[in-house]
């Protein structure tokens, strides 16, 4: 049976100034699957990912990652969590190779050769400064970097937005391959329920900070067409 990688039990975030709040999110992500959260702008998808990934996030409930309490062992847990988002900050005036060298030092499991081999395979330019990379290249660089440190959980925040269909297919092939190699699971967010349900295993819909139950993607796709 597949191992549970991330478990959220009745997680409720701190109310923001505009009154928005992640409310009572319960979910269980198992290895080997791609999970997607769809929803409109402002539904709380990014906020949920930040709630999971940030050390200073405030919430009630429990988050368990790979058997560790995320709040108590956040630093250790971040070794195995890769957050991929256009909004992530990196050393913009350094190139991909330098960024990997600087940040790789922070990770125990980071393998330089593995990073280079992924970058070579997926044609990620390593000598271009980070700021000059295209959106797709930035996302690919981040995935290669996360894969090079054997992440157990990949959290992709609207990573596929704006991708053309051909590149999207290559992108999901890459995700499946990495997931198979590292026994990981992927949690991603997107606006387009139809598009995302074709490429993932389970889909949930988020609305006003609340998450609906997970449905199998095929089931969701059929519903969308009907």
């Amino acid at each position: 049976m597949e191992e549970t990688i991330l478990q959220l039990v009745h997680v409720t975030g701190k109310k923001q100034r505009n009154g928005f709040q992640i409310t009572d999110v319960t979910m269980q992500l198992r290895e080997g699957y791609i999970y997607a959260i769809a929803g409109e702008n402002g539904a709380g998808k990014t906020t949920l990912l930040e709630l999971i990934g940030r050390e200073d996030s405030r919430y009630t409930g429990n988050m368990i990652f790979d058997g560790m309490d995320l709040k108590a062992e956040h630093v250790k847990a971040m070794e195995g969590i890769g957050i991929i988002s256009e909004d992530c900050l990196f050393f913009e005036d350094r190139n991909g190779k330098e960024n990997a060298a600087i940040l790789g030092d922070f990770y125990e499991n980071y393998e330089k050769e593995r990073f280079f081999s992924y970058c070579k395979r997926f044609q990620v330019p390593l000598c271009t400064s980070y700021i000059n990379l295209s959106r797709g290249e930035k996302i690919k660089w981040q995935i290669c970097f996360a894969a090079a440190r054997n992440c157990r959980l990949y959290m992709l925040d609207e990573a596929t937005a704006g991708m053309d269909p051909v590149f999207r297919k290559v992108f999901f092939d890459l995700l499946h391959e990495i997931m198979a190699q590292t026994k990981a699971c992927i949690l991603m967010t997107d606006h387009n329920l139809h598009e995302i349900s074709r490429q993932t295993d389970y889909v949930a819909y988020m609305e006003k900070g609340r998450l609906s139950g997970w449905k199998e993607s095929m089931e969701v796709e059929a519903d969308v067409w009907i």
Partner: protein
Amino acid sequence: MFGYDRKQQEKIEKLYEKEKIWYPDHVMHTFLMWLLTGISMIILLFPYQAYAHDHSFYPTLICMYALYNWGIQIYAGKYSLVRQNGKTHPIEELLCYVPVSKRQIILYRIKKVQKPVIRLALFNLLVKCFLSCVIYHSISVFDIILPVLFLLFVPFMLLMLPFLRDILFRY
């Protein structure tokens, strides 16, 4: 109590020392620190007995202590901010998804700032006591308390504010 983690400290040290990410603003931060603390020191070196009965001098004194602390906070900015492509980002934001605790970054900053702060406070205390001895032939207890409180304790407390906020409002 503060959960000092040597391994994480070494990683942060490596980031600063090897990559020199502070370099673009290094001169400005250091220069401003010496400028502001230097200006404030002129007044803060006066022995307590020189203004003990002159209450009108107190606002000036408070301003000088504020100026001194501002200078120290600017110096700490060298270990708080990263400038790239004309934008300044807090180092905590840059490392927010990296396995290094925000608390360790604050501790690292305090570790780096403590040397000039301790030296300045000690210098102020010794000069204050010396002048007091020479001019008034006695040392007031405030000649010791004021430097220790405002030049040593307050700067560290200000640096630890995010740390304390993190502990107090964790949940």
